[in-house]
Structures are given as C-alpha cells and as structure tokens.
C-alpha cells in the first residue's frame, strides 16, 4: 500500500537562485537611482550569489510597494517532502521548527495530494448537495459566500502524521516526524446550515463528500458530525484557500483526521450508510496484531511536540533557553502540557500561551537552563476529557507495530553535550 512506502529523505529544494538574483538587481537598481550605490554592482558578484543587503538600510531608498507581499528574501523556511511516489502524489510537511505562535502561514500549511493539485476556476466550480434530501441543490461559490458564515481557528492533522516513527526514531527533524499538522483560521458556511436548507430526509445517517481532484477523493462522514461543527470553507487565514488546501471550497472537519477534510469539494451526497470508499477501507484503517483492522477512526487524540529545541538543531552552549512547542486534541481543549528534561523521570508544567482554543494548536512555553550535560526533552499533554498523551511503548503494547496511523506518542529529543539535538526513542 502506498502509505507503507517510506523513501529516504528527498533532497530539500533550494530557494531559486534566479529569484535572489532578481531581487538583488532590483535593490541594486533602486540604490543607483538615488546615487548611493553601496552594494557592489551585480556583475562584480561571484556568479549565483545573492546581492548583499546594504550595511545601513537607513541610508538607501528602500524597495517599491508591492501589490502582494512576499516574505524577506532572507527567510528560507519551506515545506518539505520526505516521501512520495511522484512530484504530484504524497505528503509535503510543515516546518514546525520555524513557526511562531499557533497559526500556520497558508504557504507552509501541510498537504497530502493523491492526484496532484487541481487548477480550478472558481466561476466554473459548483457544489452539488443531493441524495436523501427534499431539495437537491447546486450552489456557486458566490451563492455560498452570500450565506451566513463563521470563522474558526482549527488544526488539521493527517492521520499518518508521525507514522514514520513506530519502529525507530526514523526522521531527523520535527518537520519530518510531526509536520503533517497545521493550524489556520478557516472561514465558511456551516455544513449543517446547507443540509437543513436542503431538507435531510428521515433515515439519512451519513454523508459522502467528494473532491474535484484527479482521484475524486471521497469520504463517508456520520450525519451527527455533519450536523455538528463541519465547515464548508472558502477562506484560510484571511484570504481565499490556497490551491493545495482545497481552493475554492473544502470541508473542514474539526478535530478529525485530515483526509475527511475533503478538499476541492464538489459534491455532498446524503445517504443511509457509509459507502466504503478506498480511503476508508484500503487506507486510513489501522491493522491490529490480531489481524483485524480498525475502521472509521476519525478523532485525532491529544498530542504535543517540542519544536525548539528539536531534531537537527544545535544549542550554542549552556545557559537559558525557552523550550517551546505545540499541543492539540481532537476532543477539544488542551488543559495541560508537562515538560520533562530527564527522559520522563520528572515532569513540570509548561505555560500555555493564550489564546487556548478548542480544536486548535496550543503553544506552550517552558523556561530551561541547560547545564551543558546530556538531556532528553519530552512533552506530554492532557486534554479536557482527562486523556493523557501516551508513551510509545504503551501504544505499541495495544496496537502493535503495523497500525500506521494515529501515532500520538510522546516525542523525545536528546540534547547531546555538544549541543546537537537528536530524534531518539527512550
């Protein structure tokens, strides 16, 4: 099965040299215009080197206004693919180690695509709601945007997040081990509003949602969840959804595995049973040691991870560091995060950064003075139901090593005496 394949790390994509050259030339040109050409002319640069920034930016006219902003040319955080069969198919992961706060920039939101990222003109896109309803309906994006909407900050985590880590500490960075979770402000219309308007008939117990990508991803979702808190979203972090994240319309299913958050949503069929699609039979089912597979596992259980210090980083020397990370639970609020610096022998409470929101990433912070000796850092969270994030051994005891999905185990980072940080199992 495709999700079992774990290829060696693909080389990370280097930021385009050409883009650096271009912005360097633009800055250079601006400098020449004001007659204060402190940066050396482009042709004096060694080939391919970016133009250096001026020593004193207050002595050079800055760049022009830009209609659509880009980050500083010196910022390099990127999503990264650790596995995948083609350029189009597979996951690409969020650089959690580079994020601040709880919002994932849309450009860095993880995504998993089975048939590539579709190119959809919103004017032509339609949502069909039909099946066991009194009034089947076709809606345009404009129709949907006219309806009463809500905005909510919600995490989405792929059920396969951390699936590389069951047998061994496999990937070096937190981007590799945990980068299939992200958190955005999503704006859209409650699915319950659309279903009530369409008139759900007696006996309807599930919906099937389908996307407009090349695999037509389709998932069955229980009616109780559909009538509870699912959004038909068109907005992400204040602008339209990004194509990789479902433009122009997607489901956002709070707290549930990423795959049911159907992207490029084009159809909701109201039915009286789950439809046993590929992604709820052949995949996204969890094989147990007795040979039975758990099916319709939707909720992402409570999980946390330290993002600094984390794998492949290096502490410059003994002294003060603020340990920080993210915690979340598909069952609601994160109530508590504890941090251990001695491989779980002792635990102390971390501070939870406000706002602490249901079904969203929660940022935690923990002051730490490193004495320069080897340390193993861990975090574990407790959610509003009292559920405590388990140790890997406790998960494996129940589920074995072949269940693939829903690995929410405590993560360990070993800080070596030289300051280097490593992914370890303890």
């Amino acid at each position, binding site marked *: *099965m*495709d999700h079992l*394949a774990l290829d060696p790390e693909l080389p990370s994509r280097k930021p385009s040299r050409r883009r650096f050259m271009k912005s360097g030339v633009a800055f250079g040109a601006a400098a020449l215009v004001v007659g204060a050409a402190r940066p050396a002319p482009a042709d004096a640069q060694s080939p391919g080197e970016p133009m250096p920034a001026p020593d004193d930016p207050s002595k050079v006219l800055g760049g022009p206004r830009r209609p659509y902003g880009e980050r500083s040319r010196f910022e390099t955080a990127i999503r990264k693919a650790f596995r995948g*069969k083609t350029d*189009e*198919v597979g996951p690409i992961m969020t650089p959690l180690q580079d994020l601040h706060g709880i919002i994932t920039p849309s450009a860095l939101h993880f995504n998993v695509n*089975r*048939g590539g990222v579709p190119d959809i003109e919103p004017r032509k896109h339609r949502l*069909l709601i*039909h099946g066991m309803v009194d*009034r*089947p*309906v*076709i*809606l345009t994006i404009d*129709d949907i945007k*006219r*309806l009463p909407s809500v905005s909510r900050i919600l995490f989405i985590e792929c059920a396969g997040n951390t699936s590389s880590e069951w047998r061994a500490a496999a990937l070096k960075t937190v981007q590799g081990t945990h980068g299939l979770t992200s958190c955005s402000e999503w704006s859209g219309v409650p699915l319950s509003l*659309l279903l009530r*308007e*369409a008139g759900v008939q007696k006996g309807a117990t599930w919906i*099937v949602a*389908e996307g407009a990508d*090349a*695999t*037509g991803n389709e998932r069955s979702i229980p009616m109780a969840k559909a009538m509870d808190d699912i959004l038909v979203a068109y907005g992400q972090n204040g602008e339209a959804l990004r194509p990789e994240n479902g433009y122009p319309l997607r489901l956002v299913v709070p707290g549930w595995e990423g795959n049911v958050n159907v992207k490029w949503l*084009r*159809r909701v*069929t109201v*039915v009286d049973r789950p*439809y*046993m*699609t*590929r992604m709820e*039979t*052949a995949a996204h089912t969890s*094989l*147990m*040691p*007795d*040979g*039975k*597979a*758990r*099916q319709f*596992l*939707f*909720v992402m*259980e409570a999980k946390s991870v330290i993002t600094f210090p984390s794998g492949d980083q290096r502490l410059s020397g003994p002294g003060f560091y603020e340990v920080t990370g993210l915690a979340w639970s598909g069952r609601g609020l994160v109530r508590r995060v*504890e941090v251990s610096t001695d491989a779980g022998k002792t*635990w*102390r*409470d971390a501070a939870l950064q406000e706002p602490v929101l249901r079904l969203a990433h929660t940022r935690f912070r923990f002051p730490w003075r490193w004495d320069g000796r080897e340390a193993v850092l861990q975090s574990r969270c407790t959610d509003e139901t*009292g*559920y405590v994030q*388990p140790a890997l051994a*406790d998960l494996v*005891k*129940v589920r074995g090593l*072949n269940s693939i999905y829903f690995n929410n185990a405590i993560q360990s980072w070993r800080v070596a005496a030289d300051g280097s940080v490593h992914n370890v199992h303890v």
Partner: protein
Amino acid sequence: MSMCRPVVVAGLVALVSVATALPSHAQLPTYGLGRAPTGKEIKDWDVTIPSDGRGLPPGSGTAALGKTIFSARCASCHGESGDDAKYGRLAGGQGTLTTDKPLLTVGSFWPYATTLWSYINRAQPLDDPGSLPPDQVYAVTAYLLYLNGIVGEHDVIDARTLPQVKMPNRSGFVPDPRPDVEKPPKTKKR
C-alpha cells in the same frame, strides 16, 4: 376606499419583493439561493458506488480481457502482474495480516470489490484519470480479482456479479475502540 389604496400597493410591493428574493427554483428556502440540479447533472456527478453496487453502469468484462488492458494502461507503473512494489502491490499477501510484515493488497485486505471498481473508474490511470470506459473498468477489476485468486479467468464481472464477489477480508474490520491506552499515574501540578 382611497384610504385602502396605499395599503394594497404596499402589500403588492411586499409580494413582488418576496417573489424577487425567492425565485421559484431556489432550493435554499430561507435564503433564496441555489438551483435544482437536473437529473443528468446528478447522474454525471454521482459516481460513488456503495458496496451493494447501486449505480454501477451497464457493461462487463473478464480477467482475460482485462489482462490486455492492464498491460497497456497500468503495467508501466504496477508491473504486468500488479506486483511492482513502488506503487503498492496489488496482489498477494493473503494470510499475512497477523504476521510481522503484513502485505495489504486488494486480495488480502480490501473488504469490497465495488471499491476497486469505483476507484479505478474515477482515479486511474494516474496520468489519465477517468479515461477507461465501463467495459474496461469491469475488465481491469476482473483481472485484479483474478490475480488475487478471487474470480476465474473467464468469469463475467458486471453490475450484477461484482457486488456478489466475496472478498477474503470482508469481515476483517472493527469499529473504533479508542481511547485504548491506559492513563499514566497522575502527577501533581507544579
């Protein structure tokens, strides 16, 4: 009489504006938005096939025919016998689910043959999805079932026979029992 007129006019205006806001074809009654789909639109869009086979189109195929189509359209990724591991092996693995190295394939794991039809129909081949006509989808489905020892080489697979195919792992699925891990002893807040 003259006293009544403005009231009548106001009533008419109200009626007209309601009629404008709620065209007769509007399908969201509260908001007066959306239109009813035509039967053809629903038929064209609704390609989801449940396990009872409802919605399967006319057409049929056999493994013998499917082998040729698979060779031309699928084998470059999946191997002639569906055993190229790069894209996930499609055959074999029966009896491995309780071992250390379970091999999850159509034959060893998939609970319904209809899922196979539905997925090939909508999503395959990867570089030309939805391009196989129903007869070819039936034939390729038959070939994959044949490779897994589930149907015979000349068994006819169609809308009637496909839902009746008994998959070996049909009863291999259980509902979600989580939370399934015992809590660690409580630590004091500090």
